[in-house]
């Protein structure tokens, strides 16, 4: 039985995450949905405001007790809130017609622990932005890039609201991860019966042409209706334009194909794409 891991934090993207997960579950033949909520470590933001710099008798024990007490209160609140988020998740998933689901909350940071939970899943669904959505606009959800980097399975990045999906575009650069995307799509039921565009941006060459042709035949054999598009320009702009013009509902692309050093200098196309594009993105590593 296929398993979908849906990561939530109760932000405004949460409902959309559940709905995307429900959609994927249906497409994957009733895959079970595991909702994961991480309770972030609370001690990063100190709660005391004692600047007296004075150490009384038994200062260490007193301080430790004070910190534990303060954090215990906050942690209990966070736990309750987390439970409420999961209750909401159950309700929403039922509404969206998912019957097979599990909800779970754990202590820790999603970006640090995702590997462990992701291992047993076939697809990961996560919101484009996290809890700080409104004042972090422009930046990606703090977790997202690290989560995607840690995942071996495809990651579906949910947009703010779910819309029914009829067509998808594969941003094809001939690289390993975009070929992996093509193979996955051909072999799995997730995107079955949707219209497919194979988009290549930039200069073509014979190597790429043959890769494109191979991708096309793979997809056609799998029963997809495929159209190939060549465009020139900056990948980020072009893909955005194609998405806006073409009534495309889902962007499929390879994630973080380049080296860390290159990313530092020119920035990451992947992050830029996820940030600007208004539709959900399905990423392959």
């Amino acid at each position: 039985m296929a398993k979908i891991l849906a990561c939530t934090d109760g932000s405004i993207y949460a409902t959309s995450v559940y709905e995307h997960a429900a959609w994927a579950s249906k497409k994957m033949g009733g895959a079970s949905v595991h909702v994961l909520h991480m309770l972030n470590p609370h001690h990063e933001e100190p709660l005391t405001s004692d600047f007296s710099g004075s150490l009384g008798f038994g200062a260490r024990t007193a301080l430790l007790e004070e910190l534990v007490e303060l954090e215990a209160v906050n942690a209990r609140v966070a736990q309750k809130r987390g439970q409420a988020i999961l209750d909401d998740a159950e309700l929403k998933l039922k509404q969206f017609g998912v019957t097979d689901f599990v909800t779970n909350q754990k202590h820790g940071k999603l970006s640090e622990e995702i590997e462990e939970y992701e291992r047993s899943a076939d697809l990961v669904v996560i919101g484009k932005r996290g809890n700080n959505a409104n004042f972090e606009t422009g930046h990606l959800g703090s977790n997202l890039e690290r989560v995607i980097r840690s995942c071996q399975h495809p990651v579906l990045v949910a947009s703010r609201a779910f819309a029914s999906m009829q067509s998808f575009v594969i941003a094809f650069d001939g690289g390993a991860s975009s070929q992996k995307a093509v193979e996955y799509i051909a072999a799995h039921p997730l995107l079955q019966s949707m219209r497919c565009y194979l988009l290549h941006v930039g200069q073509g060459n014979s190597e790429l042409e043959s890769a494109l042709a191979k991708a096309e035949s793979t997809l056609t054999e799998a029963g997809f209706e495929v159209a190939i598009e060549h465009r020139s320009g900056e990948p980020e702009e072009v893909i955005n334009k194609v998405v806006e013009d073409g009534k495309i509902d889902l962007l499929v692309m390879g994630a973080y194909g380049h080296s860390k050093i290159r990313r530092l200098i020119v920035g990451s196309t992947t992050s830029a794409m996820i940030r600007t594009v208004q539709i959900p993105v399905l990423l392959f590593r």
Partner: protein
Amino acid sequence: MTDTKYFQEWFSNPRRDIIAGTVVALALIPEAIAFSIIAGVDPKVGLYASFCIAVVIAFVGGRPGMISAATGAMAVLLVGLVRDHGLEYLLPATILTGILQIIAGALKLGNLMRFVSRSVVTGFVNALAIIIFMAQLPQFHDQGLLMYGMVAAGLGIIYGLPRVTTAVPSPLVCIIVLTAVSMSLGLDSTLNTVGDMGSLPSTLPIFLMPDVPLNLETLQIILPYAVSLAIVGLLESLMTSTIVDDFTDTESNKNLECTGQGISNIVAGFFGGMAGCAMIGQSVINVQSGGRGRLSTFAAGVILLILIVVMGDLVSQIPMAALVAVMIMVSIGTFSWSSIKNLKVHHLTSSIVMIVTVLTTVLTHNLAKGVGAGVLLSSLFFAYKVSRLLKIDSELEVSKTARTYKVSGQLFFVSASTFAEAFDFREVLESVTIDVSEAHFWDLSAINALDRVVLKFRREGTEVNIVGMNEASQTLVLQVGKYDKEGAELESH
């Protein structure tokens, strides 16, 4: 460690870190100055060291939010070196200390901390508090009642002010008020001020090569000091990091911390500072003020230097009484007062270990020796306690010609004699069965004791069967045991 995590360790909490760093810087100045004086060097040696160590450890340490700088524990070890050989040997000793600490980090000696028991840690902390306190006492010498009055007033401010407000650092208020009083009443002619104690830094620290011959003789002079310094520095740093771990409910990298301490000491040595380590009191102040990240340690170092360089003239006017008051506060805050209450509650052996650690340290002025004594004693106590887990029962068979001894527990050098004495060799038996299925043989002494028992029985004409020896014990017996080998004779011991 990933770069993102490292970034977070720096910048997850910037505002609080900088405020906390400022509060901590004020608590660093008295310790750096006071212990420079005790070590017999100019205050600038301690102050440069504090700056270098705090700034470097912020980058390379394994425990974000912990404060390291020039400390009392290290300074008291340096007294002899500076007195007998001079300042020029202090700097290479500091650098060698750093090298030894890096080696310790590379060899993962941080893991040895598990042998330091809770009681030894408590003893260490208490001894440290006592050393800090005692180091303040010479300041009262020849200063008259006025000094006592000033220190009492300072302590009054330090402990009284937080009851009114916790928004301003009370040590700072103490220093400012006492300095103002001393300057306006002209007390600085009778009372010592910081300026009387030696020169303060007027510039940023500069890189300098140690001015000593690089030969074996130099090494012979500095090595013993460097070894002590390296051990004490790592002990205090690792203990403090455990304390900060508890406060923040986060993990630290102990071996990285060892290496980090080493690097920061090397840097301090090259910039004319003395060796330092983590500070328990100041780290508590940091956490209490909201400091959590690497930035807090960095800020403490930088603000310390700014205060000293920019306001050097004012700093030299600070009466020693104000610094003594702050250091008494640090010593009171460092001391584990609950440990005195716990003397009644805790097991006698724990209390003895704690007290021996304190006494050894206070008498030798060397925390390494105190911890050594404590660890040794707690190991002995532990060995004794485990040795009492040995139980030997026996049962005579109905025929009255055979007996089964059932041994359970731990057999090692401490319990070996108990084991040997548990058998009755005068009893006339045809055969004896020794059931050791519940026992474990740990070492040569245990195997040897078994050998002797078996051979003694054989000499009395008793046949001996040993049953149920577990695999680990068996391996040991096969290697060294004699009873099952041909022509076995009892060795004379």
